[in-house]
């Protein structure tokens, strides 16, 4: 079934007709051809494409060309060679290899047909052997049988393509021009996907667009917020528009599982993994890179899951997503993939490897791009049992020169954290103690933008503390660390430059014994939420790092997600049903920890703010606004006041109406009650007292004789 039909509705209908649904095999039902019962398929063209494939039934047949032309006596030998080559790739069907022979010359014709069990094998064989060199003069030319039809249809004469008239597109950035400067977010709950404005002034979400079954797994905003991507069985799609959400482009990729945008949202990477025909093999992975605007496949990667699995850490069946990491800032110029003993860096002009070869780095474990510059930071662990030290190096792309390198000893693991402008790189280094029985943690801090990239070593005061979380202040010079061993860890703040020490890292403060295990900096810096997720039941502490003071503490019970809006004005905390079944929904807070509104939704899956593109204001301009904030904020304060006045006015009016309506009810009831009074008395055997009458409280003195005793008192 292409579409999910609401089973409940279907069952209700069936019950109405007296049909027992449990007796029906739904898959066996076939619609009459050409009849869609008025259900318009979303996937008309995808569907047709599929049909083309299966029309001939030769999807699993390949044609191998450029074979040597041999006489009959050598026929068997050649056939043997060909069979040997192609059985390595897949199982050839019985009588599946046919090499035609010219009946006049009794020689082969220089090509053959091979039929596999599955189209996937055929596809793989085509890929692997196209261009295969049999000998000096014979290079295989392999094609799918089905493709011939297509090739034949290419007209011999070139026809100038029709030039379509220019149709101006919608303003996809329209949401940024909202008069109230609100932000949007998307939620998924049950089968519905909804986009809302965060209307903090009215303390409620304002609906923008809602669609049931919008996506088959999840939705994702593009990094600059222009598109909303949905994932379907046939591929991915992006949506956007000035006022509503229209489908802008579709990217056909059957069984797509994961998607990822490049940071400048020029490209979309899609991923799928397929069961192999031979259960011993690893899953087959298909990765496509699409141009977001044209929908064209720029490059595809196919292979077994092993080739894309790195380090075996997390991700989907051993593949850590995203497989391709984008670098070089917002220009989407480079992307790279970690391989065994190498990093493959591609550039997007030709979608090929830089210098046509991968960077060979023995035993490389991990790498990250600088968020701003084409610089790769990579980590290589110790080799040869400690003879060769572990190292972290910075490599410039496309030149591949090493900018800086740091050797590290007795390292167990490294994690790299870039500051959002690419100014600093922090490397969290777990080292073995001398006994090798435990580890302790230190930081290596790189100042990328300074000459020669100086490196500083930071160690915690208590060396035994475990690092629970680390986070850079976005666009700032500070970072926060949650560390500690016990159930209530400490939180420390450091700055890379202060007024006293411009070139040295210094500690700002340590907060002792916090119920926190995650850090969420405001995207504009200055404020951070110390959150206690999972084990801490959703404790939230809103902390001002400029003043080093707590602004508010709150709790969103069992919160699973914390998400700042892109401007840093509001925070959403959510309880998604993935982790916790009860109390699903989300809360919206102001940056300083005031709860603005709550929304409860059963089966709540996803909450995501729509990102904003970076501001066009220069740093100086931003500073100027921050300095003269009073002047600029006046306008908005006046607006706020108007809204709140209007709101209270509306509120009062609403309440007045409700009260009036209620009074009408009550009056009616009283009248009826009065009318029925006599009859009620009759039912009570003439007892006059009704509920309205007060009963009298009487004090009754009860004397009880407890004991009587007779006594003879002598009379004198």
């Amino acid at each position, binding site marked *: 079934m292409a579409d999910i039909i609401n089973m409940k509705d279907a069952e209700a209908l069936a019950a109405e007709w007296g049909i027992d649904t449990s007796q029906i095999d739904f898959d066996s039902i076939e619609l009459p051809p050409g009849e869609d019962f008025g259900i318009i398929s979303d996937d008309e063209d995808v569907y047709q494409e599929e049909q083309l494939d299966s029309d001939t039934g030769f999807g699993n047949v390949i044609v191998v060309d450029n074979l040597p032309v041999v006489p009959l006596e050598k026929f068997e030998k050649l056939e043997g060679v060909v069979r040997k080559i192609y059985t390595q790739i897949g199982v050839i069907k019985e009588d599946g290899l046919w090499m035609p022979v010219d009946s006049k010359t009794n020689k082969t014709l220089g090509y053959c047909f091979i039929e596999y069990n599955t189209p996937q094998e055929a596809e793989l064989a085509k890929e692997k052997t196209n261009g295969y060199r049999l000998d000096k003069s014979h290079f295989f030319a392999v094609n799918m049988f089905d493709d011939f039809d297509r090739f034949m249809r290419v007209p011999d004469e070139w026809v100038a393509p029709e030039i379509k008239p220019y149709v101006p597109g919608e303003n996809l950035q329209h949401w940024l021009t909202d008069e109230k400067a609100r932000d949007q977010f998307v939620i998924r709950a049950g089968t519905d996907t909804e986009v809302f404005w965060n209307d903090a002034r009215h303390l409620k979400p304002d609906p923008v667009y809602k669609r049931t079954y919008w996506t088959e797994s999840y939705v994702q905003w593009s990094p600059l917020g222009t598109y909303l991507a949905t994932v379907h069985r046939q591929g991915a799609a992006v949506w956007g528009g000035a006022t509503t959400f229209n489908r802008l482009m579709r990217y056909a990729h059957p069984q797509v599982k994961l998607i990822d945008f490049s940071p400048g949202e020029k490209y979309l990477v899609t991923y799928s993994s397929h069961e192999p025909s031979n259960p011993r093999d690893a899953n087959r992975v298909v990765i496509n890179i699409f141009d977001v605007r044209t929908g064209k496949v720029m490059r595809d990667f196919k292979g077994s899951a092993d080739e894309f699995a790195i380090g075996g850490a997390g991700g989907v069946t051993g593949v850590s997503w995203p497989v391709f990491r984008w670098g070089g800032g917002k220009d989407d110029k480079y992307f790279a993939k970690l391989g065994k003993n190498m990093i493959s860096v591609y550039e997007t002009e030709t979608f090929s490897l830089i210098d046509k070869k991968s960077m060979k780095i023995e035993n490389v474990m991990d790498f990250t791009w600088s968020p701003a510059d084409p610089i790769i930071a990579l980590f290589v662990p110790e080799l040869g049992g400690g003879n060769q030290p572990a190292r972290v190096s910075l490599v410039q792309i496309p030149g591949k020169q090493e900018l800086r390198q740091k050797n590290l000893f007795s390292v167990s693991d490294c994690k790299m954290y870039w500051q959002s402008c690419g100014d600093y790189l922090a490397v969290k280094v777990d080292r073995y103690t001398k006994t090798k029985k435990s580890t302790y943690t230190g930081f290596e801090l790189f100042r990328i933008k300074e000459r020669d990239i100086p490196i500083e070593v930071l160690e915690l005061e208590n060396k035994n503390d475990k690092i629970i979380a680390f986070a850079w202040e976005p666009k700032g010079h500070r970072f926060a660390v949650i560390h500690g061993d016990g159930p209530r860890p400490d939180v420390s703040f450091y700055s890379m430059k202060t007024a006293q020490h411009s070139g040295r890292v210094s500690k700002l403060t340590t907060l002792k014994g916090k119920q926190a295990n995650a850090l969420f900096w405001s995207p504009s810096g200055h404020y951070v939420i110390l959150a206690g997720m999972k084990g801490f*039941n959703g404790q939230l502490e809103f902390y001002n790092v400029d003043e080093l003071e707590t602004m508010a503490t709150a709790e969103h*019970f*069992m919160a699973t997600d914390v998400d700042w809006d892109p401007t840093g004005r509001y925070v959403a905390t959510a309880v998604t049903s993935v982790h916790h079944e*009860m*109390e699903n929904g989300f809360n919206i807070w102001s940056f300083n920890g005031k709860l603005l509104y709550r929304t*409860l939704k059963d089966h709540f899956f996803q909450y995501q703010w729509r990102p904003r593109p970076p501001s066009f204001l220069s740093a100086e301009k931003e500073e100027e606004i921050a300095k003269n904030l009073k002047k600029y904020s006046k306008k908005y304060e006046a607006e706020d006041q108007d809204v709140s006045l209007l709101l209270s006015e509306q509120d009062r009016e609403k*309440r007045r109406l*409700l*009260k009036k309506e*209620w009074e009408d*009810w009550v009056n009616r*009831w*009283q009248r*009826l*009650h009065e009318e*029925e009074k006599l*009859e*009620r008395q009759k*039912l*009570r*055997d003439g007892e006059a007292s009704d*509920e309205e009458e007060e*009963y009298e409280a009487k004090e009754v003195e009860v004397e009880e004789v407890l004991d009587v005793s007779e006594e003879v008192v002598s009379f004198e």
Partner: protein
Amino acid sequence: MRPILMKGHERPLTFLKYNREGDLLFSCAKDHTPTVWFADDGERLGTYRGHNGAVWSCDVSRDSMMLITASADQTAKLWNVQTGAQLFTFNFDSPARSVDLSVGDNLAVITTDPFMAFTSAIHVKRIASDSSEQIGDSVLVLKGPQGRINRAVWGPLNRTIISAGEDSIIRRWDTETGKLLQESEPEVGHKKQITSLTKSADCSHFITGSLDKSAKLWDIRDLSLIKTYLTERPVNAVTMSPLLDHVVLGGGQDASAVTTTDHRAGKFEAKFFDKILQEEIGGVKGHFGPINALAFNPDGKSFSSGGEDGYVRLHHFDPDYFSIKI
């Protein structure tokens, strides 16, 4: 407002009822013994022994002389409030779920559960003023609704009976003919089982609580929906203040899931709503299990709640409660 904890039951509470004057509080629980308490200080006055199953519901006559109880032992019993003596036993074929006395206390409506081959039913019994003349015959038996009928009460002047239950539909029956007069509109009605139904003091409207996490206020004469109160927990019990425009909702997650989550996740507070504006105005915490029963003192100055935890909590309001403004 320091609540008075009344520990007298060994099993979850099922029902609470004040007498007309509001000086006595009757409590029913899944242990077999209905109990009467002083509504002022929570002192236990006595118990009514004789049932052999969970007691689901009770009602007390206007003169506070006679108590009627409905029990899962397939009986409803009449008791002398003062002495605790059993006056009469109505026998049924299935557990008796709810009971309500008519205006004038001459009639009682008793609902019975579906059990084995028996469907659920609403029975009307005549209550003799002299218990020695009491007979067990039904004046009227109403059948039809699917599933359990959780509550049936008398409409104005005993002319109608209002019933609600598992099928989430509210029905209005004619007591003269036994005909079904009206069903609540499914579009505006509850989406899940109705667990409780409470009439207003003047019997002009009533409130229903449902597992669909809402309570609804209805006109008793034409079953028109007046208000809806939305909450985030299944509602097991509802009541209305006779004094102020407040309604109280009690409930919580299903008792079977209580032990698996934190007590804060259970939502075991009694929630106060503004009756007219339908806005939540406060909550009273305390129970460590779902609230199964709620009752307002007829003077509106105190209320009591009974929980799955076996406690009855008696709350006298602070003076500032009566001056709440929103």
